[in-house]
């Protein structure tokens, strides 16, 4: 059990850091929640690869939650670093739009006004808290899906041996 707990953190760190970086980069983060689910699935895959024990869906949920928490922290840090760059990039983009388009797409100006780039401490903390909650839930989901997809099938018992009931980490027949 201790060995399994030690293994749980490394895949979650790898998946969480990767997802946090991708989620924090503008334009790349357009895949929304699919990043965090994909990252948690990656963490599940790495955990299965490194584990000798057969894993259950609850193991997927746990590693997914850890992945989500790591991703939320990393995403917040990446966004803090990227905010001045984002501001310059999107202001440049708005100027280009204004040159070539008679009318702005609806909602675009509002989306990129000054308030969108504010980095006050309360805003950062609230963002981190909300990211943590949502990423944990989505991470749990991704981890469970990952276990379902990547878990190796149990070895077939030799002919004549009694059937052993499957645990809830396995799919229904």
């Amino acid at each position, binding site marked *: 059990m201790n060995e399994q707990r030690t293994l749980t953190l490394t895949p979650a760190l790898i998946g969480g850091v990767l997802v946090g970086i991708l989620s924090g980069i503008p334009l790349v983060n357009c*895949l929304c*929640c699919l990043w965090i689910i994909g990252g948690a699935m990656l963490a599940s895959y790495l955990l299965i690869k490194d584990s000798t024990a057969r894993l*259950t869906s609850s193991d997927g*949920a746990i590693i997914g939650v850890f992945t989500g928490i790591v991703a939320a922290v990393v995403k917040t840090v990446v966004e803090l670093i990227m905010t001045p760059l984002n501001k310059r990039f999107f202001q440049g983009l708005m100027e280009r739009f204004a040159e070539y388009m008679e009318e702005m*797409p609806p*909602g675009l100006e509002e989306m990129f006004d000054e308030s969108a780039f504010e980095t006050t401490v309360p805003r950062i903390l609230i963002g981190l808290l909300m990211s943590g909650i*949502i990423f944990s839930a989505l991470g749990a*989901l991704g981890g469970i899906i990952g276990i379902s997809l990547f878990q190796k099938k149990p070895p077939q018992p030799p002919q004549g041996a009694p059937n052993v*009931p499957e645990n809830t980490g396995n799919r229904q027949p």
Partner: protein
Amino acid sequence: MSQRNRIALVYFLTLGGILLCVGIIFLAPYLKSRGSGLNAFAYLFFAPTCHQIPARSICFFGHPLAVCARCLGIYIGFLGGMGIYALRRGFSAVAMPKVRTLILVTFPLILDALGNLFHLWNAPHWLRFLTGILWGSILPFYFITGVADFFIQKKRLKAGRPENIS
């Protein structure tokens, strides 16, 4: 607490969570239409997981919803999937869906998302919404299974029974 009650508890807590999420999605534009500053928190709640691009969001009370059309489909699909889960599985046991079912419902969403990402096409709101609903409807079968299994395993560990016996 029996296994059945644990599964039911996970189910109803999840149902409460998804109802809250869907409520906030629709509350955000309503609050904005009324000039309430609270709408910022509603939009901020979904900001980590949705690009919230107004052109890709359905409008409600004259303002875009807190999530895009695809994400709205996923949340609504999840809510619908909760109903299907209760009817198909009940609360007596948990089991994961088949992989081919997951692939079947995921494929349209991935295809549409990649097509839009690489500018092969620009899908209308209704198509994004539908692909989201399809995928969202299977998610409760994984979420409830995994979370309920966590609490069942925890109970078994406390009782001193080995983990992998169902």
